[in-house]
């Protein structure tokens, strides 16, 4: 009985933190309609800033806490004013979500550069001796956490519900144009919500730091938990954020206490998926509220850019020639990186079909890499299957998983789809860590053989290189044709306006499922090749950070361009190889590039280059008096 109460109490503590995080999400979402995935990173920044102020500069705890909160809030305001708020009027919703992924990566990278990768812990605010009430032991920090959570929750509620400022904030999310007409400065309200959310995150981070160890990427955990809490409770509901947070905290602790700490993660994710299936708008969303996808209005519409005509063929031929002679020009280290670039590019092609062309968001692409990678590696290593049949088995398993995930997410769009795919990725991740006997657990699977077809084994990087290039060329030719077919037009119609597409008779669900499956199979293939090339596979090689990294590659290269993401993939894979000493800045650079790409090159490197080349061509032609345009803007 005591244990039960103890566990429940632990759950409430955890839940209080999640509730605070969820409120941060809810705040930004209610004002801007965007889920800010960078939210969790502010927790870590504040906690580590407090640590440094205390231990390096010798401040007393109270001023250190105040300083850390002020600093983090200021940082949040700056970041919001320079990136998030201006981007709101430039980017569609799905890209905004990716921008916040970029911000998360950027902040994590900055933390890594400043504080390194070791874990930190703060001393508790008022001693460690637990208080015993009726036989239940409570750590003093628990009171701090609960107390602060209550204060934050009540204060925020008062501000939102009772003040004119609160009404103005809510008006901005309800109808920005009308809010402007009321004389509300919408941009300022957006910035304010972002800043307030970073303050709430910072408070949560400082409170939880004494009972958790914090690393540069702990922000990701906070983001995931807060996002899940708010989705379980209901995206736009205040009570929902709190209820969702508490429910998530208690479930996690109960699962860890009674089942197994390894699978508590998996159980929580299961809970989330069931909730999404049963009540897609969250448990606490009022039944009368509008459908959540009603706010998926396109704030900004971007056309797909494409290079066409004889010139495109010439460029492609030249590029292919360059790619074929490249292995003879570079060192073996760079050659290995090129092979990795190619392998990842295969998965990114899938992502481009899903995100760039169909307009769906997936934060779990690496989950399929993990399925493919582990299936083929385990079969080839432990069961003596040939690598090729292992790859095929992995692809088949990924296909089945993709169809199941599709069925679950059929009714979901936008942020909920993003969340479901994130949950899927985390689920695969926790299974890869948890099923130690099969996967080798956190330390990874060793002794994976080289890839082979029949008697020919691809043992050298050069042979792997040509294999991967061959695969990519075949895939590109296939999909280039596919995109011009009826299938391609249908998925691009879904991207532009899924309701209109459905009205024209496009079976939206079936096409979405098909694209998701294709994308999953490509990721699976990439995952298998990855394992065979490294002769080793660990969960973090195919974890959530890989999913985020692939999104960065896609965005930097150019969404919806098929070949464009190759440049993004190459850039992010080769940079750390070429600048070895700067490896510690890799994450920060990745985030920064992604944010900059969204901010200044929303069409990506390739998209921008194509637009430029085409403009030049048009200019030349019109000079010659022809005037025909080589640029096909396909707006289905």
């Amino acid at each position, binding site marked *: 009985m005591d244990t039960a109460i103890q566990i429940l109490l632990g759950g409430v503590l955890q839940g209080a933190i999640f509730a605070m995080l969820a409120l941060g999400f809810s705040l930004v979402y209610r004002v801007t309609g965007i889920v800010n995935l960078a939210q969790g990173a502010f927790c870590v920044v504040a906690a580590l800033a407090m640590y440094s102020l205390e231990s390096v500069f010798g401040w007393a705890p109270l001023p250190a806490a105040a300083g850390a909160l002020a600093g983090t809030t200021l940082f949040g305001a700056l970041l919001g004013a320079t990136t998030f708020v201006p981007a709101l009027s430039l980017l569609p919703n799905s890209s905004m979500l990716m921008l916040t992924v970029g911000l998360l990566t950027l902040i994590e990278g900055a933390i890594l550069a400043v504080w390194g990768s070791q874990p930190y812990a703060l001393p508790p605010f008022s001693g460690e001796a637990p208080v015993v009430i009726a036989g239940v032991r409570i750590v003093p920090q628990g009171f701090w956490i609960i107390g602060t959570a209550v204060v934050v929750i009540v204060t925020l509620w008062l501000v939102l519900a009772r003040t*004119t400022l609160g009404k103005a904030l809510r008006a901005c999310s*309800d*109808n920005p144009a009308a*809010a402007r007409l009321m004389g*509300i*400065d919408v941009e300022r309200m957006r910035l304010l919500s972002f800043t307030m959310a970073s303050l709430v995150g910072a408070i949560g981070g400082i409170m939880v730091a004494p009972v958790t160890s914090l690393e540069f990427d702990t922000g990701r955990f906070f983001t995931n938990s807060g996002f899940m809490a708010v989705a379980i409770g209901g995206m736009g509901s205040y009570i929902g954020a709190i209820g969702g947070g508490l429910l998530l905290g208690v479930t996690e602790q109960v699962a860890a206490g009674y089942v197994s700490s390894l699978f508590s993660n998996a159980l929580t994710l299961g809970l989330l998926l069931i909730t999404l299936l049963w009540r897609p708008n969250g448990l606490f969303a009022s039944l009368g509220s509008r459908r959540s996808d009603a706010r998926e209005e396109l704030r900004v519409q971007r056309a797909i850019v494409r290079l066409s005509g004889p010139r495109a063929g010439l460029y492609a031929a030249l590029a292919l020639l360059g790619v074929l002679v490249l292995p003879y020009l570079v060192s073996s280290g760079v050659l290995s990186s090129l092979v990795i670039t190619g392998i990842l590019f295969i998965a990114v092609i899938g992502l481009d079909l899903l995100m760039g062309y169909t307009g769906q968001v997936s934060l779990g692409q690496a989950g399929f890499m993990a399925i493919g990678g582990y299936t083929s590696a385990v079969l080839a290593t432990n069961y003596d299957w040939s690598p090729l049949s292992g790859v095929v088995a992995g692809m088949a398993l990924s296909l089945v998983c993709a169809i199941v995930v599709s069925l679950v997410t059929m009714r979901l769009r936008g942020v909920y789809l993003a969340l479901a795919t994130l949950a899927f990725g985390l689920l695969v991740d926790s299974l890869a860590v948890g099923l130690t006997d099969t996967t080798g657990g956190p330390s990874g699977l060793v002794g994976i053989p080289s890839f082979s077809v029949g008697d020919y084994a691809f043992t050298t990087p050069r042979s792997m290189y040509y294999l991967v290039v061959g695969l990519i060329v075949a895939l590109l030719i296939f999909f280039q044709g596919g995109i011009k077919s009826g299938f391609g037009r249908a998925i691009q119609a879904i991207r532009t306006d899924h309701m209109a597409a459905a009205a024209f008779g496009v079976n939206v669900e079936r096409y979405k499922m098909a694209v998701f499956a294709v994308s999953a199979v490509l990721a699976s293939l990439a995952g298998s090749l990855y394992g065979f090339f490294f002769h080793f596979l660990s969960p973090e090689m195919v974890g959530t950070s890989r999913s985020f990294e692939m999104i960065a590659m896609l965005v930097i290269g150019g969404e919806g361009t098929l070949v464009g993401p190759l440049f993004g993939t190459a850039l992010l894979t080769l940079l750390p190889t070429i600048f070895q000493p700067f490896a510690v800045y890799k994450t920060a650079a990745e985030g920064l590039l992604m944010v900059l790409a969204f901010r200044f090159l929303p069409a990506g490197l390739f998209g921008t280059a194509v637009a430029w080349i085409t403009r030049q061509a048009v200019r030349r032609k019109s000079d010659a008096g022809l005037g025909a345009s080589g640029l096909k803007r396909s707006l289905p």
Partner: protein
Amino acid sequence: MLKLHGLSAGYGVGPVVHDINLSVAKGEIVTLIGANGAGKSTIAKAVSGLLGISAGSIELEGRRIDGERPRARVLAGLVHVPEGRQIFPNLSLRENLQLGAYTHQHMAASQVEGRIQEVCVRFPALLGRLDTAAGFLSGGQQQMLAIARGLMAKPRLIILDEPSLGLSPAFVTEIFSMIRALRDQGLSVLLSEQNARLSLAVADRGYVIEMGRIVLEGAGKDLLGHPEVTERYLGGAQKAEESATEQQSESLVARLRQLLAS
């Protein structure tokens, strides 16, 4: 009160409205009539600042406001009730109305509440449902709410964009009599309407907009009797439509007879 001089405005590529010269005097109802896409809403948006202008000037009470943000224009006494009942659906009626007085931040809560009661005298249907979410109101009530919200800011000039769009005839009559009552209290009204008959009947003056240009202007009564206006906006087209349907139904009846006979 309001003077537009040589105004051009539009979206993206090029201007939608060109060289608009228009004025609204104090206590006057001025109506813009024209077909869908003629540019009426574009003019309304340019005046309230939702849309930038590419040429010309906008003067409110002798002061140029075309460079100012929407907020400054609300403060100057200009309120725009946009087309399509742009209410805040998830906020309660009371909160919608309170936000209408957002620029009057010196007003105490009790004063705002007093103002709500005052404004809602004209909209008794709203009074009973002040704590309902606005999204649950009927279309007509939402339009009422949008106008009431606009009045909360105590405007001196109110722009009503298509207030009768999609409303039942009873509501339409009600809204137009309310517009007249507002004018009688000294408010200036710029009305943009597709229902030319009713809006010209209530208006002191009117402008006919076609393809983004003013093609005709004059007193409401004169325009109502103008042959071109009658032909294009007051049922010339309607008659043609009616006769077409009549012909159709006649031929249908004839075919039915044939079928029955065989």
